[in-house]
């Protein structure tokens, strides 16, 4: 065999070719504790609960602000050794924090065994466990969001949502995800904090308060407590910031190393200034951003965490000024950025809910940093910082931050070149988001064009307009592969035996035509969708009763205009999005195409043979399985199957359109499973595309594993031809492409990656990410995890350490078709 071409990442992991020059500090911090099992820090939950006990009956936003202030005053403050930025909300090492208001009812079952679970385990200190069980959990009993939701869902919705009475176990048919996050990801308006500081922001609230007419009962009972909350939350974050200044000075007094002493004093000076006052330089802007980001995490669990927004835009004026004045070098700026990445990597999004863990494996959290794209005026926005971000990602051994590059039709060739180079590094960064699709769609959905042009990537593949978007509830995940099963088994699924879950659409062996079969499938599909929308309405109603977000609200123009918490169901002037995730796209359309072709068009198989084969998981039906597998598959630019795929997408969009009109918001179909296509597959028996029972479903809008045999261009075209561009009830489609390092080797290879990206942009596809790693490396990493601890792979809108994810998901990634050179 010829020798493998290795990606730069593989060179680092396998051949230990690491260049630490200029990154001595970062490696020092990193190596101290990056690969230990993360621990749970209970302080946030403790002080939050302590305050919540004393404020019952008050406006929820005000209670929340008071609780945050209590946390700010009492939580231990930390300055990580060697760090240049201050601010973490847990002990040293990788850590996660608790949000008992969401899922405290799980603690009894989950917490004591957290360190033994096979996916994303955490360590819990026994003393801390005692605090949780005796002090925190009892207060929340009967009060959590999850309990309320479980009680509220009517039986016919519960039956597709949960398996058990208490709603601890997901059914993986129409799964709710709102009970392990208080909202979907969010991007605070960092620019506002950096430019104005919290004193000025607080003054705005004070002025509004002064103007209230307290003889008016709305002003007295709704607006006043809301503004009080805004004022208190500004105090809270400023108190927390100031405590870091004090700590830095204390540490400096004890520090014997002169260099570190000076660094600590500089941290103290910075924390005296921000986030209270406007930042004066790059360092202060970074620190103000970091405080805001970390305090947002104390505020609430916005799933997939707080994103970083358009960092290359809002930091650029400070960077430029410092560089011009000679007070900052490019290397110093890079070091500060990397200091942020290292601390970011240590905060883990802790999922208590066992279903939640399955959804985002590998300690997933993704604080997307957006670079490139366009200005609000529509000019190209690339600047020197955009390049610095890319540079800091290359040769960098961390999966944080999640870098997202915005690409548009006039993206400069140099930017695209450096993006391609970074992708070729092999750790999966950056992911690409397409302005030509996103700006256009969001503008059509009601976002003013200047704000649409100024979007930030948020979470996995989503986008946000920090002063126009409003919170979105954790969305519903619909396992449409179960609709296929229910078509085959008259409303039942093999995994759940005789329980009738869907509609009784009849015995498929009696169907005479493809139209009859497809009509039955469509009924099952629409039935699940309706259940999903009904569930989401309940979720949207309950969310504001349980959650408030004073910090996010004080930073949002519309909240301050209307004096409403960001969790309010509808905020005047806002754009409300609601999503549902499509699970099993490739699996379903390949199965439908196989049935159409072999049973109805060519009559090579009977429906009974197909069903018998699937029931037997193909045992004794191997030839039938081969025939099914060889039918046309999605991902090959084959109109036979892509026509079906387009129609399946269309059903979703048309139903979403109806639901949008009913609810007065925007309901969109998304194809972003994160890692949930693995657990959702576990309830699905063998499918007529030859997929074995209980194995992973296809992921996102990618082809079924190994089914895309015609290279990446065909994958992109299949995606394009199935999107229904005449409808707008659609959002992100996650798309993974795995390339072998050899196929993109050298300058010529870089050019090919650029050409693929340009065409992807022309095709107006939403998202694209690459895994550039040899299959061989992954197989070896599975066998010898200790030698591959730091191998990063692209999973679904984020990268994670290969050895941190479950074996099933590892297999899933290994099985994604690798497109080699031809």
């Amino acid at each position, binding site marked *: 065999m010829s020798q493998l071409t290795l990606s730069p990442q593989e060179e680092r992991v396998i051949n230990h070719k690491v260049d630490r020059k200029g990154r001595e500090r970062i490696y020092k911090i990193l190596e101290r504790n990056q690969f230990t099992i993360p621990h749970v820090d209970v302080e946030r939950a403790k002080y939050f609960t302590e305050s919540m006990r004393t404020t019952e009956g008050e406006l929820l936003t005000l209670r929340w602000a008071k609780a945050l202030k209590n946390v700010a005053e009492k939580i231990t403050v930390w300055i990580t050794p060697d760090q240049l930025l201050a601010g973490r909300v847990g002990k040293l090492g990788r850590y996660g924090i608790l949000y008992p208001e969401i899922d405290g009812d799980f603690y009894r079952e989950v917490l004591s065994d957290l360190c033994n679970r096979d996916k994303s385990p955490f360590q819990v200190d026994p003393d801390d466990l005692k605090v949780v069980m005796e002090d925190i959990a009892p207060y929340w009993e009967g009060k959590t969001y999850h309990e309320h939701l479980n009680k509220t869902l009517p039986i016919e919705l519960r039956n597709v949502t949960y398996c058990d009475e208490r709603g601890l176990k997901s059914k993986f048919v129409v799964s709710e995800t709102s009970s392990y996050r208080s909202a979907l990801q969010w991007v605070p308006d960092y620019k506002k904090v950096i430019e104005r500081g919290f004193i000025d922001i607080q003054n705005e609230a004070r002025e509004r308060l002064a103007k209230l007419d307290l003889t008016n009962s709305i002003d007295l009972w709704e607006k006043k407590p809301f503004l009080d909350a805004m004022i208190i939350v500004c105090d809270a974050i400023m108190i927390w910031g100031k405590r870091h200044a004090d700590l830095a000075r204390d540490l400096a007094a004890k520090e014997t190393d002169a260099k570190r002493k000076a660094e600590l004093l500089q941290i103290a000076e910075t924390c005296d200034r921000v986030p209270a006052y406007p930042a004066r330089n790059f360092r202060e802007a970074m620190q103000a951003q970091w405080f805001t980001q970390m305090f947002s995490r104390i505020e609430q669990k916005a799933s997939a965490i707080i994103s970083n927004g358009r960092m290359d835009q809002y930091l650029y004026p400070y960077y430029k000024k410092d560089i011009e004045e000679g007070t900052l070098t490019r290397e110093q700026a890079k070091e500060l950025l990397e200091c942020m990445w290292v601390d970011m990597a240590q905060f883990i999004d802790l999922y208590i809910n066992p279903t939640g863990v399955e959804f985002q494996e590998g300690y997933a959290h993704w604080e997307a940093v957006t670079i490139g794209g366009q200005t609000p005026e529509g000019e190209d926005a690339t600047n020197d910082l955009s390049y610095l971000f890319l540079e800091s990602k290359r040769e960098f051994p961390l999966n944080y931050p999640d870098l997202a590059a915005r690409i548009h039709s006039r993206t400069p060739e140099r930017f695209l070149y450096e993006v391609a180079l970074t992708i070729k590094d092999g750790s999966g960064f950056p992911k690409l988001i397409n302005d030509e699709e996103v700006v256009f769609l969001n503008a059509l959905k009601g976002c003013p064009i200047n704000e649409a042009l100024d979007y930030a990537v948020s979470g996995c593949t989503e986008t946000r307009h920090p002063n126009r978007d409003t919170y979105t509830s954790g969305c519903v995940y619909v396992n449409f592969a179960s609709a296929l099963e229910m078509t085959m088994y008259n409303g039942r699924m093999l995994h759940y035996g005789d329980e009738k879950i869907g509609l009784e659409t009849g015995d498929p062996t009696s169907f005479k035509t493809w139209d009859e079969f497809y009509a039955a499938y469509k009924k099952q599909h629409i039935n699940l969708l309706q259940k999903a929308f009904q569930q989401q309405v309940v979720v949207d109603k309950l969310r504001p009763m349980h959650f408030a977000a004073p910090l996010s609200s004080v930073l949002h123009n519309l909240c301050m205009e209307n004096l409403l918490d960001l969790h309010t169901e509808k905020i005047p002037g806002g754009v409300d999005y609601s999503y549902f995730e499509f699970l099993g796209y490739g699996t379903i359309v390949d199965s439908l195409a196989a049935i159409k072709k072999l049973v109805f068009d060519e009559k090579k198989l009977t429906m009974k043979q197909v069903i018998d084969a699937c029931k037997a998981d193909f045992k004794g039906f191997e030839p039938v399985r*081969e025939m099914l597998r*060889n039918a046309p598959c999605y991902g090959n*630019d084959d109109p036979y199957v892509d026509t079906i795929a387009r129609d399946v997408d269309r059903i979703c969009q048309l139903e979403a359109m109806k639901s949008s009109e009913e609810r007065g918001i925007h309901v969109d179909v998304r194809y972003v499973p994160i890692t949930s296509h693995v657990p959702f597959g576990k309830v699905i028996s063998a499918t007529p595309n030859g997929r074995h029972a209980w194995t992973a479903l296809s992921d996102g809008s990618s082809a079924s594993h190994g089914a895309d045999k015609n*290279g990446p*261009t065909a994958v992109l075209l299949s995606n394009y031809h199935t999107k229904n561009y005449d409808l707008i009830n659609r959002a992100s489609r996650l798309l993974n492409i795995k390339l072998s390092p050899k196929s993109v080797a050298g300058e010529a*290879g870089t050019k090919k990656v650029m*050409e693929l990206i340009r*065409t992807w942009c022309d095709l107006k596809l939403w998202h694209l990410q690459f895994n550039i790693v040899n299959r061989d490396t992954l197989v070896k990493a599975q066998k010898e995890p200790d030698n591959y601890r730091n191998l990063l792979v692209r999973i679904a809108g984020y990268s994670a350490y290969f050895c941190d994810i479950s074996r099933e998901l590892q297999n899933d990634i290994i099985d994604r078709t690798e497109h080699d*050179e*031809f």
Partner: protein
Amino acid sequence: MNDEAMKGIVFNIQKFSVHDGDGIRTLVFLKGCPLRCKWCSNPESQEAKPQHAYNPARCLTAELCGRCLEACKTGALTLVNGMIAFDGRKCENCFACNRACPSGAQQVYGEEMSVKDILDRVERDGVFYNRSSGGMTLSGGEALFQHDFALALLRAAKNRHIGTTIETCGFYKYEFLEEACRNLDRLIIDIKSLNNEKHKAFTGVDNTIILENFKRVVAEFPDLKIQARTPVIPGFNDTEEDIRAIRDFVPQRANVEYELLPFHRMGGPKYGYLCRRYEYADKELDKNLLKRLKAIAADVPAFKPGGTIEA
């Protein structure tokens, strides 16, 4: 006959080809070749007609399936010690086994397609060609072995504004090459060896026509991008003398490039499927030697503008 209606035998259409011409391309492999190179990596390309092959790796085995054994009436497929055995000499290429096989283990190399069918498929990737100056590359076999068909394909592609390249051995009447070049964006042509005896021994044909065709095409198409290629084959032309001789033979002009293509054995398994023995199964190219040869190939005197062709 109208170019688009012409039919020929194709054995593969491969998208996202990135090493055979400019940009992102679709490779169309045409059946038939006048040469019989001992190292050939596409043995399924040599015969002009569609032919049967058996890939045991994709086979479910006789125990689980065995449908091909029932279908085969010529005795080419038999059960030997529980395994399916294929005897190429008895195969009449009736393809009954291929139709019976559910897994694709019994396969057919070659399918009749019209120019229109091919270009409709090639054109589906048009959006990628636009961004990368890519297009269609005809390969084989010998791209021009089915010359009427191949020339129709090139003319029709030009007509549809699809970029065109061929990979050719150069062994045929000059008129074919001339007509092809009128419709090409790039010509990729093999110069395997200047030593005629060796050439005959390893490829089965005389190199005179090839070298003459090459000289003529360089002279008559001064604006066409021409890429001369030498597959570096162990024991055949992997010496410094061989490569230096070819390099000196290739004229130094702005439109002419020269490159080496290292030997690989990726086509090896296909010999087995066709019931043939691969003489190069255990041959390997010395890596250091290749490095030296590449340096020689690249080591040309500074380009002289307006330089003339020296044979």
